[in-house]
């Protein structure tokens, strides 16, 4: 029976994720506006910083751009459920709220990962960065950073979506608790982009994995507490 319940949950997760991706594929609203926003933020940084110095600021630019554009983007996952009361339709499906959380988180993750790839390509293009010392590790760090951000912001956008000051509230909720991810992701990125450095990033990666696990477990365990009025 638990096995059957688990396979049901997995299939519901997949159905829900596919629905969200399909709506995005149809409207292309979120991804296109996110990409334009990313370009604009990088442009703003370029004007604010000496482009030659951009190199040393690249890790900071990368994560600041990612976080602030991401904060705007993740809200969409629940905003689309507000139309026509679909959120209640979802809650009335035979699916645990934790599954809804995981599906929304997975959607946000995919979405942000695409944006991050574009963002990285632009950074290399604009600031002529050196190649990362270990591309695989570099991608893994990015992957863990995005996963941490997606898991935390998905939980809290489930809260902020109901509030009047939604756009203002989400950063307040997410940013303080995101500090471990910010610290580790930026430090690891900086180390990996420094050709002179021989340091490893194992410590940072370990903390990233641990904090990602905490966020996901917290969201998964606590999400049903915020669904029922």
């Amino acid at each position, binding site marked *: 029976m638990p096995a059957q319940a688990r396979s*049901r949950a997995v*299939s*519901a997760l997949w*159905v*829900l994720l596919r*629905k969200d991706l*399909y*709506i995005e594929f*149809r*409207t292309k609203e979120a991804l296109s506006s996110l990409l334009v926003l990313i370009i604009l933020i990088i442009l703003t940084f370029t004007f604010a910083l000496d482009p030659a110095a951009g190199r040393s600021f690249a890790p900071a630019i990368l994560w600041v751009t990612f976080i602030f554009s991401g904060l705007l983007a993740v809200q969409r996952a629940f905003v*689309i459920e507000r*139309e*026509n*009361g*679909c959120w*209640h*339709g*979802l*809650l*009335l*499906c*035979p*699916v*645990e709220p934790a599954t809804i959380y995981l599906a929304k988180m997975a959607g946000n993750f995919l979405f942000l990962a695409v944006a991050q790839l574009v963002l990285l390509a632009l950074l290399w293009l604009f600031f002529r960065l050196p190649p990362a010392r270990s591309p695989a590790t570099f991608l893994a760090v990015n992957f863990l950073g995005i996963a941490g951000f997606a898991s935390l912001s998905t939980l809290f956008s489930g809260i902020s979506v109901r509030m009047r000051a939604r756009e203002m509230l989400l950063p307040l909720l997410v940013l303080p608790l995101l500090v471990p991810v910010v610290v580790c992701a930026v430090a690891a990125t900086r180390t990996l982009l420094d050709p002179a450095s021989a340091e490893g990033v194992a410590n940072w990666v370990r903390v990233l994995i641990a904090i990602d696990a905490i966020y996901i477990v917290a969201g998964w365990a606590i999400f049903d507490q915020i669904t*029922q*009025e």
Partner: protein
Amino acid sequence: MSEGRAPVAEARGLVKKFGRRVVLDRLDLTVRAGEMVCLFGPNGAGKTTLLRVLATLLRPSAGSVRLFGAPPRGSEIHRRLGFLTHDSFLYRDMTPVENLEFYARMFALADPRSRSLHWISRVGLRGFENVPVRYFSRGMEQRLALARVFLHEPDLLLLDEPFTGLDAAGRADVEGFLAERRRSGVTIMLTTHDLGRGLELADRAVIVSSGRIAWESGEHGVPDLRDFSAIYREVTAPARTGGLA
């Protein structure tokens, strides 16, 4: 006549507060298997809130709810519930088929596609299968919302104003569906402001006022429209003057 049958939905001392506002005030109601209960009452009486609590969308502030003889727990109970409300629960960027297929898959129903197509034609939307819902009129959306409710063949239907936005043909269709569901033993609770239509359909009439059951038809079935109108005016009078003051 229905006393012997098992209770499907029970509310005991049900209280629901939104912040400081008391919407349901120690409400008691029992609905038994196969019954068709119509809830009447002025705006703000608590009819919609009652249905939302029974649908497990709201948790009671006090008192208890039992569905199918047990307190509702877990998400499997949702397979047996069909809830229709003012919101259609339909994604505007998807077509009717996509919407119904999505819900069919979330309910893990067999043959999601053919089932969806079947219900789309049942509610009279054949030919609109592939038009995104955003282009639908209110009445078409209401028809599709009904299809969504019937899709997983629930045992208990909670219908809030099922006739809103429908034309005469649509209302007749809905009455036909409800009659058909009833024949297969489904329990139905619905709200309406149309006293005449509600009385025709229901085998029990209930008047909700100020968050409580103000009046309930008994053993002898529902009264006729004239008697009922008088009763309705009388039992809802304090609430109405209170509302206007």
